[in-house]
């Protein structure tokens, strides 16, 4: 039997990797990839807590499904933004977009 801590540690590691991607990649699409990893890590947590808690309570799975929906929405809007920015400024490098600078 696998202890809960294994799953949680795995999820924490996956989340940290995603965080690194979101913080450090230059390409905006790659940043979104990192965000996807973080969302997956959260989902792993939710399902693990369902499995190790009261199985009859489906809350974990329900929230995981809602996170799927949120992830889909985020990707759709995020990629649309990337494409829109790409059209206007001809770049997908996050560092080059500093219009909000002082």
């Amino acid at each position: 039997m696998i202890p809960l801590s294994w799953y949680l540690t795995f999820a924490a590691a996956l989340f940290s990797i995603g965080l690194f991607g979101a913080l450090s990649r230059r390409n905006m699409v790659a940043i979104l990839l990192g965000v996807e990893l973080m969302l997956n890590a959260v989902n792993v947590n939710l399902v693990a807590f369902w499995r190790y808690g009261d199985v009859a309570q489906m809350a974990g799975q329900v929230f995981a499904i809602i996170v799927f929906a949120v992830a889909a929405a985020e990707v759709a809007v995020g990629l649309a933004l990337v494409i829109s920015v790409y059209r206007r400024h001809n770049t997908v490098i996050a560092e080059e977009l500093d219009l909000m600078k002082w």
Partner: protein
Amino acid sequence: MTTENLIWLIPLPPLISFALIVLFTNKNKALSHTVAISAAFLSWLGAMIVFVRALGVEHFGEHPFASSINWLPTGDTWLKVGVLIDPLGAAVLFFVAWTILMIFLYSVGYHNFGQPAGDHDHAGLPPHGATVHGHTVLSVEPMYSRFFAFISLFAFGMFTLVVSDSLLTLFVGWEIMGLCSYLLIGFWYAKPSARAAGIKAFMTTRIGDVFMLLGIAFLYSVTGTLSFREIFTEEILHTLASVPSGVFGLSAAGLIGLLLFIGTVGKSAQFPLHVWLPDAMEGPTPVSAMIHAATMVSAGVYAVIRMFPLLSMDEKTMTVVAFIGAFTAIFAATIAVAQNDIKRVLAYSTISQLGFMIAALGIGAYVAAAFHLITHAFFKALLFLGSGSVIHGMEHGVFHTGNHKVDPQDMFNMGGLKDKMPITFWTFLIGGFALSGFPLVTAGFWSKDEILADAWGHHHYIVFATLAIAAFFTAFYTMRQITLTFLGSPRTEEAKHAHETPWTMTTPLVVLAFFAVTYGWVGIPEHFPVLGPLVNNNWFHDFVGHTLEHVPEAPEFSWIPLLTSLVVALGGLGLGWFVYKDVKSVEQDKFQISFLKNKYYFDELYEVVFINPAYWVAENVIYKFMDQGVIDGVLHIFGPVTDKIGSAIRNYFDVPVVNQFIGDGSAEVAWWFGKNLRPIQTGRIQQYFILSLVVIFVVGGLLYYILTLA
């Protein structure tokens, strides 16, 4: 409605009328006079109901209509405002309501309502006439509505004064009338003489008012109340009479009485503050009637009659009052003899007659004073309105001939008007005879006779003699006036074309003439030969006398005063007719004595004694010394000193501390932070992300440290 509530409402309609006319109906002349006359009528109606109810009360003197409410809190006590109608109040209310209503009605005609607007009239000047089909006719007063607003306010002041139950509200009404007299005497404000007269009236009466206010304040400080019913109790009166005032050896009662009396001297134009009243003729004639008969001067006499219980506490005050009254009576009567302006004769006559009342009061003839006040109000209102009617008729003549140099008020330009203006003539004759004291039929005879009888009966022979001579002059100048104005033949072309005035003017004359005759019959002495037993009861004496706690005794009947008044009245009238029946021009008048004509040079005397010194003081002491020398000098010291202090504060506090340290300092700190924090605003989303995570770690670490380890 209870009578008390009704009394509260009596002064109200004219006030509402004033507000309505000023605020809303100013543009509409017909609406304005409708509002004003309706208001006067409502007040009249209320006054009549109150009067009739008062007649129905047994022992009305002990049970007057009174009600009061708390007004201003003064620490633990209240200044109260209230109404009081006792027999004196009811009698005064009666004549005030009648005369005011009549004057309101008369004003409609006097100001030429219904006539076209003048060709060259403008506000502030009397109407100059309008041209219709080539004829010049009278034109309507440009400030018609304004006039009705002012006399409404005037009426409000008078009604307030009459119904008030304390000196405080009486004084309020008193001052309102002071203001209105100023406004109305100066009604034709574009005339410099009218302006000056308005100011003169206001300033002169103000001198009296200041003393009166002092008296009121003194009275309040001694007794703690201003209500008549509370002051006129045995206890308080005796306290007042026994407390010395420290001035001239008078008691408190005496000094207060004297101060209040000075108020009356100003208001009722007694010597030496009489100078304003003849000048007040500058106002429109209804105003003259209002001031001289119905309201203002009557108010002055009413106030002293009201305060009689207080005045009578001190012999010295009474002597002063009697002296002033008697002196004024004869003094003004002699001046009237030499006046040529029809209204000025009446003005001096008013001063003289008021002197009769004051003198009567001074010798303790309380009822006689009140009686003469009322009869005088009726016949003097009648005479003024009559004179206004004459002037109006003359103006008609002036417009007819087109000779505007002719003064329509000069009696030597008149003559023979009795055929042209019959109603005016007969009513004027009745008024004049009442003024002269024509025996038996006129009201003036009975009231004047009562004063003389009182003076004789109470052994005031000097006063008696003075008043008798004054009465002779009165009859003489009255007959002179009637003869010059109405009798004989017209002396000018204008007088030939004089015309009777419209019904709005003649109706009041007839009504007032009725009272000028009949009102005397309510005061026929009981012991008068033949007539006394016939009426059997001196109603007026009985009614008004009960206002006082100790009803004054009617004097014993004596033939001497009666014969005296008969002789002076008939003698004066006869002599007046005899002297003036053939006078054709002013040169033939033997009484054009410059000393009398110039009113004993009192205006000139005041000019030299008071006005010029006042100007001199104002110019040299106040302006040159006080203002330019002292005040400007002080200011010139203050200027540099405050400048120095200001510079010091600026240089050593404001600039370094406020501006540089606090002001610039805070800005610099903010600027420094801004400059140094600016680089973190990179506009790069990932750097923001990192920064927020740093903050989360720091805060989270701290929380963790505090919650678990500490």
